[in-house]
C-alpha cells in the first residue's frame, strides 16, 4: 500500500496460478486427475516410445544399407522391424494427438473445467503404461518376430518369440484407448460451455469426436482378436490354425476390421490440428466449415467398411475384393474434400509462415501423395503387384509420418506456448521443419520405386539391384533423425529458458487462447460464454488493418 519500500518484484507477484505450479512432487503428477497434467504424462511417455521406435527404425535402415545381412542375423532383424511397428503403431501413433492434445485441449476448447470423467482419464494413462511396460518387457526378454500384424498361424503356433506378453500389452493398452474415447464422447456431449452449439465447435473437436467413435467401436474387436491368438497359443484351441481346425484368413478379417479404422484414429486428429493451424495463420474461418466437420464423420463410418482391401491377394473371395475396392475408392473422397477446403482457405487469406504453418503446408503435400498412392493400392490389379512390397511401406509412411507425425509436430509447435507458457527458438524450429520435410521425402520416396520394382517388405537380405534406392532411403533417414532430435532438444531447453508468452501469442481464435499460458488449474476463472461462430477472425482482422 505504501510507495516507500521498493518491492522485490518476484516475491510481490501473487503465487502463480497455473496447472504446472499446482504441485511439484512426484505424487502430484502420478495421482493427478487434471486433464492437462495427464496430457503431459502422455506426452512424456509417448516421447519415450517414439524414441524407442525411432531407434529400431534406424537399425532397420542401417541393416538395409547393404544387400547382405551383415549387421544382424535374420532372427534379430525380424524382431527389430516388429518392435518398430509395435511401438510406433500401438504406443505412439494411436495415442499421439488424441491422448496428448485431445486431452489437453478438449476441455479448454469446450470451456470446461476438465473432461467428463477425470479419474477414468488417469486410469487410461495407467492402463496405457501397463501395456507399454509389458511391450518393453517383451522386448527385453527376446522381442517378438511376427510383424506388428501378428498374422496367424505364424503368431499363434509357429514362432517361439514373446507373442503372449506383447499381445497382453497391446490388449491392455487397447482399453486405455476405449476409455479415452468414452471420456471424449461424454465430454463433447455434456461439457460444452453455454452458447457453444455443435456447429460452433472447433474442427479439432469434431475430428476428435469422430476419432472417439472409432476408438469405442473398433478397439474391442482387436482386443478380442488378440485374446483369441493368445488362447490358441496357450491352449491349442483351433481358431486360426488350420492344423487345429481353424481358419487363418478369419484372423485377417478380424485384425483389419480394427486396424484399418485405426488408420483413421491416427489421421483424423491430424486433420483436426490442420484445420486449427490453417485458420489461425490465414486469419480465416475454414472454407466449408460444415463440410469439413461432417467429412470427419463420413470417414469414421466409411472407414469401417473397407478392411478387406488389405486382403486382395490373401485368398479371400475375388468378389469380396471387388466390393472392398469400390468402397475404398469412396473413402478417399471425403479426404480429398478436406484438402480442397484447406486450399480454398488459403485463398484471399492473410498468410504468415510461422513454424506450425510450415508443418501445415508440408502436410498438404505429403498427405496428397500419401492419399493418392492409397488409390494405387485400392486399385485391384495394381495392388496384386505392389501388395506387401516397399510400395505399401512408402504409402503408409507418407500417411503416418508425412501426415500424422507432421501434424503432431505442428500441434506441438502451435500449442507448446499454451502448454508451457514459453516460446521455443523459432529459427531453429523452422530449420527442423525443413529437415523433417527433406529427410522424410528422401527416406520414403525411393521406397515407392523399390516397391514397384518388386522388393518385398520385411526382407532382411535383398537382391543387389535394389541397393541404390536403399542407400538413398538410409541417407534420408539420417536427415529425418536430425529433424526429430532438434525439436526434442530445443523444446526441452525452452521449458526453462524459453521466452515467456502472453495468453495468446498467435492472436488465435478459440477458447483455449482466452485463458492464461499455462492455463490455471481449473482452466477458466469464469465459465466462458460463447456468442460467436468458430474461427471468427473477421473482428481481429478489422483491428489489425
Amino acid at each position, binding site marked *: 500500500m505504501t510507495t516507500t519500500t521498493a518491492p522485490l518484484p518476484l516475491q510481490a507477484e501473487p503465487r502463480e496460478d497455473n496447472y504446472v505450479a499446482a504441485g511439484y512432487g512426484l505424487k502430484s503428477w502420478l495421482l493427478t486427475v487434471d486433464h492437462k497434467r495427464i496430457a503431459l504424462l502422455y506426452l512424456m511417455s509417448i516421447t519415450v516410445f517414439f524414441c524407442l521406435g525411432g531407434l529400431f527404425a534406424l537399425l532397420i535402415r542401417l541393416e538395409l544399407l547393404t544387400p547382405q545381412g551383415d549387421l544382424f542375423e535374420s532372427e534379430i532383424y525380424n524382431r527389430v522391424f516388429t518392435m518398430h511397428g509395435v511401438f510406433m503403431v500401438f504406443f505412439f501413433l494411436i495415442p499421439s494427438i488424441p491422448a496428448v492434445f485431445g486431452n489437453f485441449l478438449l476441455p479448454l476448447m469446450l470451456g470446461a473445467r476438465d473432461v467428463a470423467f477425470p479419474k477414468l482419464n488417469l486410469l487410461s494413462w495407467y492402463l496405457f503404461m501397463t501395456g507399454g511396460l509389458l511391450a518393453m518387457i517383451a522386448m527385453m526378454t527376446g522381442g517378438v*518376430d511376427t510383424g506388428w500384424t501378428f498374422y496367424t498361424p505364424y503368431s499363434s503356433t509357429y514362432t517361439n518369440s514373446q507373442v503372449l506378453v506383447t499381445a497382453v500389452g497391446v490388449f491392455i493398452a487397447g482399453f486405455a484407448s476405449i476409455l479415452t474415447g468414452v471420456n471424449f464422447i461424454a465430454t463433447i456431449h455434456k461439457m460444452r460451455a453455454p452458447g457453444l452449439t455443435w456447429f460452433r465447435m472447433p474442427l479439432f473437436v469434431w475430428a476428435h469426436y469422430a476419432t472417439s467413435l472409432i476408438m469405442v467401436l473398433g478397439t474391442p474387436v482387436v482386443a478380442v482378436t488378440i485374446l483369441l491368438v493368445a488362447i490358441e497359443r496357450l491352449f491349442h484351441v483351433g481358431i486360426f490354425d488350420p492344423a487345429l481346425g481353424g481358419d487363418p484368413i478369419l484372423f485377417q478379417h478380424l485384425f483389419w476390421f480394427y486396424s484399418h479404422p485405426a488408420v483413421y484414429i491416427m489421421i483424423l486428429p491430424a486433420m483436426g490440428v490442420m484445420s486449427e493451424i490453417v485458420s489461425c495463420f490465414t486469419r480465416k474461418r475454414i472454407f*466449408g466449415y460444415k463440410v469439413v466437420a461432417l467429412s470427419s464423420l463420413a470417414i469414421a463410418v466409411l472407414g469401417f467398411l473397407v478392411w478387406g482391401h488389405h486382403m*486382395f491377394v490373401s485368398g479371400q473371395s475375388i468378389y469380396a475384393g471387388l466390393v472392398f475396392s469400390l468402397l475404398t475408392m469412396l473413402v478417399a*473422397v471425403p479426404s480429398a474434400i478436406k484438402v480442397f477446403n484447406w486450399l480454398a482457405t*488459403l485463398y484471399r487469406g492473410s498468410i504468415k509462415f510461422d513454424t506450425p504453418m510450415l508443418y501445415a503446408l508440408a502436410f498438404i503435400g505429403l498427405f496428397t501423395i500419401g492419399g493418392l498412392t492409397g488409390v494405387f493400392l485400392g486399385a485391384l490389379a495394381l495392388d496384386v503387384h505392389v501388395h*506387401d512390397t516397399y510400395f505399401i511401406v512408402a504409402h503408409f509412411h507418407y500417411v503416418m509420418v508425412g501426415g500424422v507425425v507432421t501434424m503432431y509436430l505442428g500441434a506441438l509447435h502451435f500449442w507448446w506456448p499454451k502448454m508451457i507458457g514459453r516460446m521455443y527458438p523459432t529459427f531453429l524450429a523452422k530449420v527442423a521443419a525443413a529437415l523433417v520435410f527433406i529427410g522424410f521425402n528422401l527416406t520414403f520416396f525411393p521406397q515407392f520405386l523399390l516397391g514397384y520394382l518388386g522388393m518385398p517388405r*520385411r526382407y532382411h537380405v535383398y537382391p543387389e539391384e535394389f541397393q541404390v534406392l536403399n542407400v538413398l532411403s538410409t541417407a534420408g533417414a539420417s536427415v529425418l533423425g536430425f529433424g526429430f532430435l532438434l525439436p526434442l532438444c530445443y523444446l526441452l531447453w525452452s521449458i526453462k529458458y524459453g521466452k515467456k508468452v502472453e495468453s495468446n501469442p498467435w492472436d488465435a481464435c478459440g477458447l483455449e487462447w482466452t485463458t492464461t499460458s499455462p492455463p490455471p488449474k481449473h482452466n477458466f476463472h469464469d465459465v466462458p460464454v460463447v456468442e460467436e461462430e468458430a474461427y471468427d477472425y473477421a473482428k481481429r482482422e478489422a483491428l489489425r*488493418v
Partner: protein
Amino acid sequence: MFEDFSLFPDAASSYASRVDSLYLFLCTMTAVASFGILCAVVFLSVRYRRRADRAAEQLEGSLPLEIFWSAIPAVLFVGIFAWAAKLYLEMYREPADCMEFYVTGKQWMWKIQHPTGQREINTLHIPVGRPVKLTMISEDVIHDFYVPAFRIKRDVVPGLYTSEWFEATKVGTYHLFCAEYCGTKHSEMIGSVIVMEPAEYEAWLGGQPASQDPVEAGRVLFENLRCVTCHDAGKNQRGPDLHGRFGETVGLANGTTVLFDEAYTRTSILEPKHDIAVGFEPVMPTYEGQVTETQIQQLIAYVKSLATDTGEGQQK
C-alpha cells in the same frame, strides 16, 4: 552397386504391360494433382502473404464448389476401380487350356511339381507363350508366391488351395519372392522362374530324372488307400462314383451344391463329413495325417483324369 540398376521392373507376362499402363496412368494423375496442389500452395502463399494494409476476406464456403470437387475424384476413382477390377478378374480367373503346376510352400522353400510329374525346388521352368496355372498350398504358415516380372502374387495358405496364372512372354530368368512374412528366413525363401523356348523346355523336361506321372501315382494311391473299394460302381459302392465328375456341380445332402474342384476333393479326403454328396451315408473315414500334401495333389490329379473317363475303361 549401379550394375542392373533400373527404375522399372522387367515386363515378362501377358498382363505385365497392362498393369504398367494402369500404374503409369495413376502416376500421371498423382503427379498432376500433386504438382497442381504444390503450385496452388506456392501461388496462394505468395499472393496472399500477410501485409499490414490488407485484411483476410472471410469466405463461408460454397455448396456447388463442394459438390464439384467431390464429384471429380469420385468419378475418377470409380473409373480407376472399374479398370483395375476388370484386369483383376482376368488375373485370378484362368483360361481353360492352362498347363497345371502344383506349388507347395513350407518354411523356407518352394516345392514345385510339373504337369508331367517332374519336381523341382525353388526354381520353376516354364515354356514361353503358354498359360500356366499354379495351384498352391502351404504346409505350415502363410507364404506368397510373387513374381514381380509377371506382376502376379497370391498368398499360399495352409489348408486352402489358392491359384494364380500367367503367360510368360519373354525368355529369361526372373525373381521369385515369398511376399508374405513367414518367419526367420522369409527373405531367403526366394528362387527363380526360368522362361524357356518350348523346345528347350521339352529338352529340359527330358533331362530331368524320370519321375512318376502324377496321375499314375494318384491311381496307385487310390488303390493302396482302398479308395477304390467304395468309389467304384459295383455292388460294394458306398460313395459317389468319381468318373466324369471333376468340374461338375455336386448336390449335397443338406440341399446346397458345391463345385467339384481341387478344394472340394481335398476337403473330402481330409474332412469327409464336411460335404456329404446327396444320396450317400457319411461313412467315409478321414485320411487326415495319412496322406501328405504331395499325395493329396496326386490323388487330385487322378480324380481329375477321371473327368474325361466315363468309366467304360473299367471293364477291361
